[in-house]
């Protein structure tokens, strides 16, 4: 679940209609690079729609208690289809699925962001040190290669089952097996940066390794990190859903995967489509929005693919 496919990603990025860099009547793009990226991003409907979608999901997660009551207790209407009273229908115990999806958003967001945050810190640390300290490159590279060639989901299952299901277990487990992908991407971006002459110059004026790393190397790879955060978070959501679907979710909180797990285990899956459809839709919306958002950001950042406005 957690493996990114950079070939596909980078390709879809570069394949956006390329602006041949012909500036009309000599006008130059204005503003700082960051401002130009942001302007290009806002003009891309894919980017704005996906950001709006992500923002909506975050709002749902934050304000879950205001939107729906916590789904607990048993209802009388068992497995009733979507209606005015139960927008998304009810499950095999008569609990409202709309409420489950709303509260599930919270768990999925917490696990996704938590795991992504941890994985990014680890992955960036390993990736940048691999590129910067030549002596560490071989052992770290080998570790990353080894981790990447293991079937990750079965490993996560084993660890989650051992450590006992809880939200914090999920966060740690998913992060522990997601960082190698981040490390790989960050390392490949940091490699050319550390050979640039401004990094040498920073050394020459007597900068410490720490200062050079934080002041000069990290900012240069920060765009990759931004994209990584979004992609890693969406993969973490998928991993969480997968583990919960297999029954390894936090039993005390709802999540999208857990709703599917209930539907599968109770057999409601084959008779009542709504028990599977709405949580699935939520997962799909979040992950597609995150992926498109990352793509749009990549496009907006790349001067060759974005269309600068000129004055």
């Amino acid at each position, binding site marked *: 679940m957690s493996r990114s*496919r950079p070939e596909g990603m980078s390709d879809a990025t570069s394949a956006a209609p390329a602006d041949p860099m012909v500036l009309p009547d000599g006008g130059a793009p204005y503003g700082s690079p960051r401002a130009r990226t942001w302007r290009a991003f806002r003009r891309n409907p894919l980017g704005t729609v996906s950001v709006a979608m992500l923002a909506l999901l975050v709002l749902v997660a934050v304000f879950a208690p205001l939107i729906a009551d916590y789904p607990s207790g048993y209802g009388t209407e068992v497995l009733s289809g979507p209606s005015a009273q139960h927008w998304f229908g009810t499950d095999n115990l008569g609990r409202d699925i709309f409420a489950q999806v709303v509260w599930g958003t919270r768990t999925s967001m917490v696990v996704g962001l938590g795991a992504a945050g941890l994985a990014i810190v680890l992955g960036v640390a390993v990736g940048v040190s691999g590129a910067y300290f030549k002596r560490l490159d071989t052992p770290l590279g080998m570790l990353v290669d080894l981790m990447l*060639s293991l079937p990750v989901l079965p490993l996560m299952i084993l660890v989650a089952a*051992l*450590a006992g299901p809880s939200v914090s277990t999920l966060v740690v487990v998913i992060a522990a097996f997601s960082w190698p992908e981040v490390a790989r991407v960050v390392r490949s971006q940091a490699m050319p940066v550390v050979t640039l002459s401004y990094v040498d110059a920073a050394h020459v004026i007597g900068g410490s390794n720490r200062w050079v790393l934080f002041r000069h190397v990290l900012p240069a790879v920060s765009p990759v990190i931004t994209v990584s955060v979004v992609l890693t978070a969406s993969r973490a959501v998928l991993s969480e859903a997968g583990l919960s679907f*297999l029954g390894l979710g936090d039993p005390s909180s709802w999540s999208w995967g857990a709703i599917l797990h209930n539907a599968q285990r109770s057999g409601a899956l084959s008779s009542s489509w709504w028990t599977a459809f709405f949580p699935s839709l939520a997962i799909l919306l979040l*992950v597609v929005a995150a992926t498109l958002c990352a793509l749009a950001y990549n496009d907006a950042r790349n001067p060759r693919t974005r269309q600068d406005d000129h004055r």
Partner: protein
Amino acid sequence: MAILRFGSLRLLRGLLTLWFAVTVTFFLVRLLPGDPALAVASPTMTADQRAKMLADFGLDEPLLLQYVNYLAQLVQGNLGISFRQSQPVLDILLERLPWTLMLTGSALVLTLIIGLPLGVAAATHKGGTIDRIVQIGGVVGQSLFVPTVGIALLYAFGLGLGWFPIGGAIDSDVYGFEAYISMARHLVLPALSLVLLQIGAYVLTLRTNLIDALGEEYCNVARAKGSSERTVVWKHALRNALLPTTTLVGLQLGFLVGGAVLTETIFAYPGIGRAIYESVGQLDFPVMQGAFVLLAATVVVANFLTDMAYGFLDPRVRVS
């Protein structure tokens, strides 16, 4: 000779990966808070019974000794005894392995059969309608949640149209040729879920590599000689574009195996993934651990075979 050297280096790498997988799981299982002994010990056991049981499973020895013993047993093909079924883990899993191999193998072959023409079509019509569809499909396909795909297929073709069975791997009352038909019919939906899951990565990679290859000098030479564009694409460019695409197989294998765990759960397919799902419910750690080791070994072997094929196809690889 170069191929021998290349082969032994790859073999060494495979063994290293396997050792890493085994070691990581061993120490995870022993050092994590969930005490496997507690999982088997029932609360009614006396201290003596518990101690005897720990001794039976060899859980009372020093950690390092346990590790050496575990490795020694593993080399002899002993993955331990299942906590719940009182049966050797290897026996339980070997019964399941052929199903998983068939599922993932056919998914991989189908992916390549469907993906190849799609990638070629997208690359040769760069910027066209097919290309746009392939690109959007590739991105969305990579964001799919495996159970969602499985459930959707199950609803559409299993419950809705009734074309294919919704679970299991074979009907119980068929023999001979009919048994093969039944197996194939049961295989369609789970395999298709896995195809949909991974085909995007293959098509997008092939597309990029083919577009690059078509821009190379040798393709221009072929065109200048008067070869048809068809010959240039299929005979010259595709051969070179396929090589880097083969490496993707290795990268995707772990992912495919993970997908199989979820797919087998949805379709009640009696493979290793389903065994993992069942052992999670029963907290049967030896089975979970053994299943992971066996899946890792499968990935390592498949990776080795891919590398060797790559080495045979592309002389540049084995020389460097």
